[in-house]
């Protein structure tokens, strides 16, 4: 599992970087500042939609792997115990709050993305 996640994290990073570079280069190469029509036709194109969807899921995956590491490292009973032994007793609650927050961000972003862009 460790190696699989290692591969997926790097693959998702490649997708994210490619997307960012594509958008950044397009912004300078194409005359978006002259015509909003060019901008909107590009964004509404099926290939860009697929690329954007891939980017979104890559971002979620990449982010969740990173945030999981943050959760494991800094929201554990042991680590919170360095700050306060009383607070460390609530580490599970902190982890649940953290997970709910991450899940909400993923769900809301997906909802907004699908509703306002894909549909």
């Amino acid at each position, binding site marked *: *599992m460790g190696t699989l996640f290692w591969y997926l994290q790097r693959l998702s990073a490649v997708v994210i970087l490619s997307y960012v570079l594509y958008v950044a280069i397009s912004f300078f190469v194409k005359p978006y500042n002259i015509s909003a029509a060019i901008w909107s036709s590009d964004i509404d194109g099926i290939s860009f939609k697929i690329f954007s969807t891939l980017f979104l899921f890559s971002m979620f995956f990449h982010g969740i792997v990173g945030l999981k590491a943050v959760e*494991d490292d800094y929201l554990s009973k042991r680590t919170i115990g360095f700050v306060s032994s009383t607070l460390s007793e609530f580490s599970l609650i902190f982890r649940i709050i953290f997970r709910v927050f991450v899940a909400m961000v993923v769900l809301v972003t997906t909802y907004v993305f699908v509703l306002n862009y894909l549909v």
Partner: protein
Amino acid sequence: MKELHLSLYRFDPEKDQRPYMSDYVIEMNDSGNMMVIDAIRKAQEQDSTVTFRRSCAQGVCGSDGVNMNGQNGLACITAVSDVAIGNKLEVRPLPGLPVIKDLIVDMKPFYDQYEKVKPFLDNDEEVTTGHERLQSPKERDRLDGLYECVLCACCSTSCPSFWWNPEKFVGPAALLQAYRFIADTRDKQKAQRLKKLDDAFSVYRCHGIMNCTSVCPKGLNPSKAINEIKKELRKIG
């Protein structure tokens, strides 16, 4: 340096509510320098309750690993002049391990990880050649820089991943030993050893910050060994 202002971490769980620092003024020898362990011993002459662990005092046994002005190392082979800031030196126990008393830490979490990697040659094949299992000089060369570890724990206790997850992350010292046997052509458990390490924590918790390599008192490179394990893991997919 004529005198050293030595500050030692003190904590006796049977007596103290909290750890504290004790200050000592140590007269340096004629050369104006000395090893950190000698400074600690001089402090012990002033206060016999100062507790620390030592054995060979020449960098072989690895028992006097401490944190000196923020850097882990062996007190017996570290000169005061290399770690003191001005004439001040603060010595604390190795970070991330439970303190038994003063500068002595409980090494159990460290040894537990060491045990996990099965640090011994595992080969069930019967020897029929009439001599020991041989290696070519090239195969033997691959083990250089891997077997010399003295298990002082300076590397693992300088690693944040080990601080946060000492039960799950194997840590640089044990991973160095794991690779020592993965790389050994006489060992027949390479696949099993790698499979056991292929999870989110054991190896992949290393993010390559290389604290381990920078503090190793024997000049070893656990970070490189960890990367070699990752490469081997990727080869088997």
